[in-house]
């Protein structure tokens, strides 16, 4: 089933399904069956994908989404406990830095804090209204997307 909004994911799932077949058994075993089932049930079977570069995997063409899912698989299932801890630590730091950056960027107080007090003459008042709306629309849409 293809969900329009996520239309690229079935192809990514197909790629994932083909790639993990080349994992060593000891690593493949670490991936939960439920995850593998989810991937296989929702992959695009009409999409032909072959893993040609096993020895030089860096040269294998893969979708960006596939790369991201692979990194999640590595982080959550494959990595040893020690490596997992290190990855989570770094990622939590990255995420909190990103949240801080977003808060600072979109904080309504900040937005107007540095605006110059000088008011320039506006020729077209309609343009100003339009500018204001698009800022708030942007914020609204961002909230929708993220949450």
């Amino acid at each position, binding site marked *: 089933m293809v969900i329009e909004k996520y239309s690229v994911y079935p192809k990514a799932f197909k790629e994932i399904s083909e790639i993990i077949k080349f994992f060593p058994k000891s690593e493949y075993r670490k991936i939960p069956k439920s995850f593998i089932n989810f991937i296989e049930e929702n992959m695009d079977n009409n999409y032909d994908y072959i893993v040609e570069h096993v020895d030089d995997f860096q040269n294998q063409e893969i979708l960006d989404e596939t790369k991201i899912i692979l*990194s999640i698989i590595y982080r959550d299932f494959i990595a040893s406990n020690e*490596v997992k801890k290190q990855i989570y630590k770094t990622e939590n730091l990255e995420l909190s830095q990103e949240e801080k950056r977003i808060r600072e960027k979109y904080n309504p107080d900040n937005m107007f804090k540095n605006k110059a007090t000088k008011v320039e003459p506006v020729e077209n008042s309609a343009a100003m209204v339009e500018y204001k709306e698009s800022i708030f629309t942007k914020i609204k849409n961002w909230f929708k997307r993220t949450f």
Partner: protein
Amino acid sequence: MDDKGKILYMNVALLGQMNSSVFENSIAREAFSFEQLLEIVSIENVERVLESILRNPDSRELLISIGKDSQSWQAKFQYLMDLEDIERNHIIDEFGYDGKSLIQEELKRREERFVSMERGYFEDEEYGETFDCEIDSYNMLFATFGLSYDEAKELIKKYGIDSDKLDIQTDDDKNIYRKLQIIKELITPIKFESYEEESEYYRNYYYSHKEELLAISKNISPFYKVDLEKGFLDLYARQYDRTLEVQADKIQDVSYDGKSIPVYEVFGDFMMLIRGEQNISPENKQNFWNATQVQVKGLCQSTIGQDYIRTVNYDRDDTCFVGTISCGDGELRMASTTNIKSKEANIALSNLGVKSDYGNGVVLRIPREQINNSRGANNETDTSRSIYNKETRLYERKASDYIIYIQDTNDIDITQDGRFKTAQFVASQTGRPILIIPREKCAQREQAKMQELKDKLLGNKERSQGETDESIIKDLIVKFNNNREGILTSQGLKGKYFTEREHIELVGTINARLSQLMLANPEQYESLVQTVSQIYKDEIDKYYAFSYDRDDAQKELDIDSTREHLKPYEDFLMEHERNLFDLSDDEKNKIFSTIRNISQTSYYDMNKYHSLSHIQKVIMFSGILAKNENLSSEETAMLLVAAAFHDSGRDGEEGENDNHALASARQVQEYFEANPNNPFGITSENISMIQAVIEYHEHKEQEKGFTDISKLDNLSYKYNIDYEKFASLVKTSNLLKDADALDRARFGKKNENRWSLDARYLKSDTAKSISMLRFSEECNFMFKERENQNSERLSEDAVEEIFESELNEFNRPKIQMSSIKQVTSEITAVQKKTVMDALRDIRARLQKFFEDINR
């Protein structure tokens, strides 16, 4: 005592030893100083030997000559101790003035040997007999150096590993180095096609080096063996003197107890010898560092450098270190160990006669190699603890260049750190400056270096002259592991720098470079794969040098994380080793039918550790070894049957002994004589070979990893095996031993098994390969898993299923996890979160979709 004669410290234990009669013996007092006698009497059997020597009235000259040699007196005394009484008395009798008669005697022996070699025979005047005397390595060693072959081998084991890396500068160095080279050339085994070829080789060697050999042979002393080895020791000591250096900036002066102490900080690259002093604290007022008999752990030095700052006893809050950048003035007692198996690195009496109960002994390395090879152990160097002052005839502790303070992390306030206080106290007492080693800054510098190397490897930065893929990759791997080792004892830095994550990314970077080459230059790619494989193998071997049976090893070495650490190397090696598991159906059938046939017998019902499942696995491993080591089909059949019956005579006995091997050999004869039409396809012609192979399998070889040809010779005689089949016997016997050893994987948990099997002592390349070692582990893992599920013996079908599944697994191509890591290394946390949210959303919508349909 202090300057006013006040006793500050007394070693009470020594009081008892001063009752010894040697202190009253006039010869002993004339020959040795008080401290030398103290050292002798502190060891019981040494005191006894001295007493027996003193009973010989002619011992005076010899003992004086030994005692006055401040550097090597212990070695010479040890040499005397190791001799039989007759030999010792002979030396004492012959010694005379400066040992001239001994020199004359030895010169004569060597001259005779030279003459005999050229003549082809040796005339024993005493017994009136003639012996063959060829020009070969044994005779050349004796004639030139007065050494037996075994003695020469021991010397090269100890001093020969880094001989090609020695920095030879002076003429003295050249002369000593040349001796080391010649000994190494003469003991290095060479494969010859025929006896004639071997003979010609050594004749050519002799005649082209004759003048040199003769010159060396004449330059001897009464204790020539001791002096020869001491020369090699000095050669290494000078390497240290040339390598050690520190670049430091003065950062401040501190005041302690009214004294001003300069404080320096290291910048840039450095290497030094550092020693832990455990018993100093500001509260401890004992002036112990002037004592020469202090029994504290940590008096041995560790070589540390900018990429290896690992020290022993660092966890104590009052630990102070002292450091030196010089071995100093030739006053040396040096030993160097690079593996934890060598327990006796710190020598009690002799600087040369070092024994180790783990069989590896002490190995001398140049400082850089000592660091590069320290894995799982502190690399300790025992240099002179004391300098002999000829004027006072006292041993004094050698002054260190610096008092060392290691600042673990950048955020530590040194003024509040107990260790810095201790350092100030010691500095105020000794008058030496403090040197700060900022461990975190060093780690950061090293990280930057590694990043630069990675950029150069991938072509993102220009390389310096001489930098190649090979050199960069070697630098990266060795440096990473040095740094990782160096911070293992640092609470602040471990897990922050040189982490496993970084390590996997590093291996991924190397894979990325290989990927680049694979497309651009396949020939270069193949060559680089070989180099990288060797680099990884070398690293793995460094870790396998230690045994996890030792209590201190358990604590210090985190075996699980070490094993995890090595996994990327093993994965790479496995991927690039040739495929060992591509067995044909016919080959598999032979193996499986042997397994089935032996499973029908009851020979293994009583055994626990040598049960049927062990036999089944050994048969499987034998089949793979046979295929890859190019055994003929007849040899393969015999090997499989030998594997099947090799423990059949145990009858419940689980220990290590040759008796069960003999019993099994008899068992196999009984079986095949009673069953001429047997399912194994064995005829009466093969039985004797199988018996010999079985009997050899439990034989303890004198030298680990080396086939005992003479034992096999005896067995071939015993079992009446034709000479033409001797080579087959050797091959088959070695492979059964290997297959049996591979199943040591059954003795531990998964991922720990390898530690009870030192793969370096396996004979065949196939057995030593990572793939084979992993295969044996995986098979054992599967066996245990299934046995736990069924709690009974596995059926033959189940066994076959396990083997088929593992063969398939090892046969197919696989993607390395380090490549996955490399490919996904740029994925950010935000991207992952976005996709995770998307996946949850997809799943929720799908669930809702199916619910709606069902409604």
